[in-house]
């Protein structure tokens, strides 16, 4: 593969050439834009283009919904059956024959682009995702527009990067940058989008990309707000948290949410590979069948499960449903979303997750208030906390879940209940479902991509783990060679550390000292005869990986105190480092797929 030449920076024209060209201004600008600066500017443009695309995507979904299902929702209408079924058929044909890369939510595809395909996402994906997700969500499939927006953003970014022939390193970063822009635009919540992309797409904390992701996310949100206004997704009711004892109620919600998350994830994890194992011709009918069943649920009196369901969440937030209806809606939404998702219909799981969490939160809150009438949290408070609970439990993005609730509600008063409930949900979900849903899906597809959850759990080896005690003999560079030679003669170590003056360390072997002594340099100080090199030193808290750079070059590396570099804490050797790595168990790959 040929490496593309960076378009700027490296190829800046020389001053002489600049003087010759008539386009002096442009030439001057060429020198100003190094690749880093150019990349940051490009991120802003990615945000703008993603924002524009997401605005169109949202209009497309709304228009499809109005055109197919009508403005006034009417239960017991034939449309509820016919529309999602027929739309499912159309989507299946498009997905199989025209846009084969657009099944699923889009999060894993973006992550794969980053880690496997050097940031390459075909532009066809953006077009296909736009059309097919628009039809699917607009026709009432139980999916959300956020994940497709994320993939559309990533696809636009990737296409732009390829078109501009930016370096491969930067092209890899384009996918998460575009993903953050798309998600931020869809969700109108830039902080949550950035955190989600870090937690789920990038899968590891990387300071290098944070600035670019934030820039694109903010730019896209500004664009979306300029067209669609800054109205929040929900009308947030008065939310209160008065007594710390009520945290117990939120903890219960967290546990129930964790169990629901596991049920949701298991249902998808179980049925997806089984549906994919059916003969290929059945794939034409799977989305249609899913649409038919969702239509049946709607026909029977629960049209709220169709589509993203933000209106229903809004109503739940304002106590429009009894706890029984809320609980039924949560269960039905799990069923409907599972059907839609495993059938291969393109669409996201963000909105359904929020929906299930909202309904579950409302139901649990109402039930708790029946038994404990003194609880002061309103239904709206429980609905909001419930959203975060499912987010933390199902998507396993704990940080995003907290910030998402805060960003959506704009109310920091409920941060403690949110954190408590999300923690319980996360812990329960982790305990019962080892692999997060997105990782599970990628493993079902035969991929193993990095995960922030795994990284969080990974035990990091540090220098102190391989550190040996301070050697009995430490030579001084100010002493004479013969004095130092006498000291090492009885030492078991063949190499000794030498304390340099005024600071620094060096090493010398017994053989070196013996040779110097024989050469008649015994009356000289050790400092005067040792080569003028400074031995690298390590700190105990550094990752052990940092020692690997030196262990082949130096037989002994001092480990010093950070507050006083002359104070020796211990030493590491090649053997001690490798022994530590060798004794470490291999990284376990969970067997659940």
């Amino acid at each position, binding site marked *: 593969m040929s490496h593309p030449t960076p378009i700027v920076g490296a190829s800046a024209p020389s001053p002489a050439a600049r003087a010759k060209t008539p386009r002096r201004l442009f030439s001057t600008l060429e020198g100003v834009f190094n690749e880093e600066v150019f990349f940051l500017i490009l991120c802003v443009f990615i945000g703008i*283009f993603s924002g524009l695309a997401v605005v169109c995507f949202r209009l497309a979904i709304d228009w499809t919904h109005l055109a197919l299902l009508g403005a*006034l929702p009417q239960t017991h209408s034939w449309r509820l059956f016919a529309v999602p079924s027929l739309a499912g058929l159309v989507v299946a044909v498009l997905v199989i024959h025209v846009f084969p890369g657009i099944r699923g939510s889009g999060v894993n595809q973006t992550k794969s682009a980053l880690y*496997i*395909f050097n940031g*390459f996402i075909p532009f066809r994906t953006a077009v296909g995702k736009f059309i097919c997700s628009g039809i699917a969500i607009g026709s009432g499939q139980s999916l959300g527009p956020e994940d497709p927006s994320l993939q559309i953003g990533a696809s636009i970014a990737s296409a732009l990067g390829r078109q501009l022939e930016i370096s491969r390193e930067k092209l890899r970063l384009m996918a998460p940058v575009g993903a953050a822009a798309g998600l931020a635009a869809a969700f109108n919540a830039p902080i949550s989008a950035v955190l989600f992309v870090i937690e789920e797409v990038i899968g590891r904390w990387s300071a290098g990309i944070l600035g670019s992701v934030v820039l694109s996310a903010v730019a896209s949100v500004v664009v979306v707000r300029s067209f669609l*206004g800054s109205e929040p997704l929900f009308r947030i009711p008065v939310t209160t948290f008065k007594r710390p004892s009520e945290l117990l109620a939120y903890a219960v919600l967290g546990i129930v949410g964790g169990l629901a998350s596991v049920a949701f994830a298991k249902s998808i994890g179980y049925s997806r590979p089984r549906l*994919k194992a059916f003969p*290929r011709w059945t794939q034409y009918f799977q989305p249609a069948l899913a649409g038919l069943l969702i239509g049946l649920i709607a026909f029977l009196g629960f049209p709220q499960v169709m589509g993203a369901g933000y209106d229903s969440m809004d109503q739940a937030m304002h106590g429009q449903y009894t706890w029984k209806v809320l609980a039924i809606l949560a269960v039905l939404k799990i069923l409907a979303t599972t059907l839609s998702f495993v059938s291969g219909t393109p669409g996201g799981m963000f909105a359904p997750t929020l929906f299930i969490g909202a309904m579950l939160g409302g139901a649990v809150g109402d039930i708790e208030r029946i038994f404990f009438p003194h609880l002061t949290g309103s239904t709206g408070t429980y609905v909001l906390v419930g959203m975060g609970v499912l987010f933390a439990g199902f998507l396993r993005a704990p940080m995003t879940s907290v910030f998402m609730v805060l960003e959506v509600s704009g109310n920091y008063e409920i941060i403690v209940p949110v954190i408590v409930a999300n923690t319980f949900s996360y812990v329960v979900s982790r305990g019962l479902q080892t692999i997060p849903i997105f990782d599970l899906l990628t493993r079902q597809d035969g991929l193993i991509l990095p995960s922030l959850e795994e990284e969080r759990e990974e035990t990091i080896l540090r220098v102190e783990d391989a550190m040996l005690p301070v050697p009995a003999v430490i030579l001084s560079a100010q002493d004479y060679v013969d004095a130092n030679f006498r000291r090492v003669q009885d030492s078991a170590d063949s190499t000794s550390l030498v304390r340099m003056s005024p600071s620094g360390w060096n090493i010398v072997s017994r053989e070196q000292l013996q040779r110097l002594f024989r050469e008649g340099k015994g009356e000289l100080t050790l400092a005067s005869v040792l080569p003028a090199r400074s031995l690298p030193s390590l700190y105990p808290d550094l990752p052990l990986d940092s020692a690997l750079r030196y262990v082949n070059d130096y037989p002994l590396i001092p480990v010093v105190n950070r507050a006083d570099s002359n104070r020796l804490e211990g030493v590491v050797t090649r053997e001690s480092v490798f022994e530590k790595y060798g004794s470490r168990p291999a990284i376990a790959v969970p067997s659940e797929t």
Partner: protein
Amino acid sequence: MDEVYYLNRKRRPEVSHFCADRDGAWGHPNDIVIRDMSWKVPKLIPRSAPVILVVLTLAAATGFAAVSHLVTRYTANQQARGRKLYALGLEYARDARYDDAIAAFRAALTCDPTNSQYQLSLARALRDSNDPQRLDEAESYLLALWQRTPQDAAVNLALARVSAHRGSIEDATRYYHNAMYGVWNSDPDGNRNRARIELIQFLLKENARAQADSELIALAAALPPDPSAHLQAAQLFEQGQDYAGALARYQEVLRLDPEDSAALAGAGETAYHSGNYTMAQRYLRSAVNANPADSQSRQLLASTDLILRANPFQSHISDAERNRRITAALNQAEDRLTACAQSAGIDLNGAANPAGSPLPALQARWLAAKQNLKSLRSPGETDLPDAIMDLVLQIEQQTAATCGPPQGLDLALLLISQKREAAGQ
């Protein structure tokens, strides 16, 4: 594997669709079928940073213009659809079909989510649907509107009504006041008065008499020279049992329109309740003349006539007439006492007196008073009329308590006695 751009060959190699660079260097060995599915787009942008930025800026500007046009058209369509749904919702709301109205307003709001009129109407429909669960949502919509335009009188009025539904006097009063001093799009004075009247009605309903009185005073001070406004105010004064205030308002109405039968009836009734029977008779007579179908005024007039004929303390009557009236009152009281005792199974002579009824004792006092009737003519017995009428009052009160409210002359005597007692206090 068709969701991540490559496919496990063992499963379905034929639907693979990804995608590698031209060297085919990407992807996973063996399991991955690599096929470039990207559209071949010629490189359009020159490799110069300033040119690229100019091109991107132009592209962004073009995109903005195109999306702006799209959004404008879409918004216009949506707004038109929203207007239709809103009109439908208003129709439903007029017919008190609140569930349908709510659905229509919600649909209108999905077409035009920021339209405050739709939000206000939805909030009103939610509030008027008499479903306590919907009050929260109504309040939420209204509070969102209020945060945007806290001076909007219509929003404040709607919020006041939500608070009134909840029985929250403090909140309702605050929002009603906001509505009164807020900005009205049309007829500000009329709307302000109507808001105050609504507040007074709410306060009276909640029995917050003191607050209602202060609002009534403010209302009276700001009334326009409109008979109907004064009439409504007078009715509120009357409802608040401020008969003097009510009479003043009725008189103001009559000053503006002397033939107003409702004002005549109201003034008569108010004068009647305040014990000014002469004035009541005058107004009620005029009211009956103006509206012969007004049976309530006719009944009150009959009662007033009876009171005026039976009242021994009426001014400008002779001593003989006063004594006659006292005698008639005492005889009427005796009749009432006897009839009541019979119906209640009480022996006035003391043989059967269930639960220690006071009626036999009153009978004994009546007999003693009867003996004193002839002393009425004596000039030294100045306290005797009062003593006899006190006895009459006690008999009427006790019989009312034992046998139910009196009718006709007994009622007249009771009212006369009560008025006299009130005047004495």
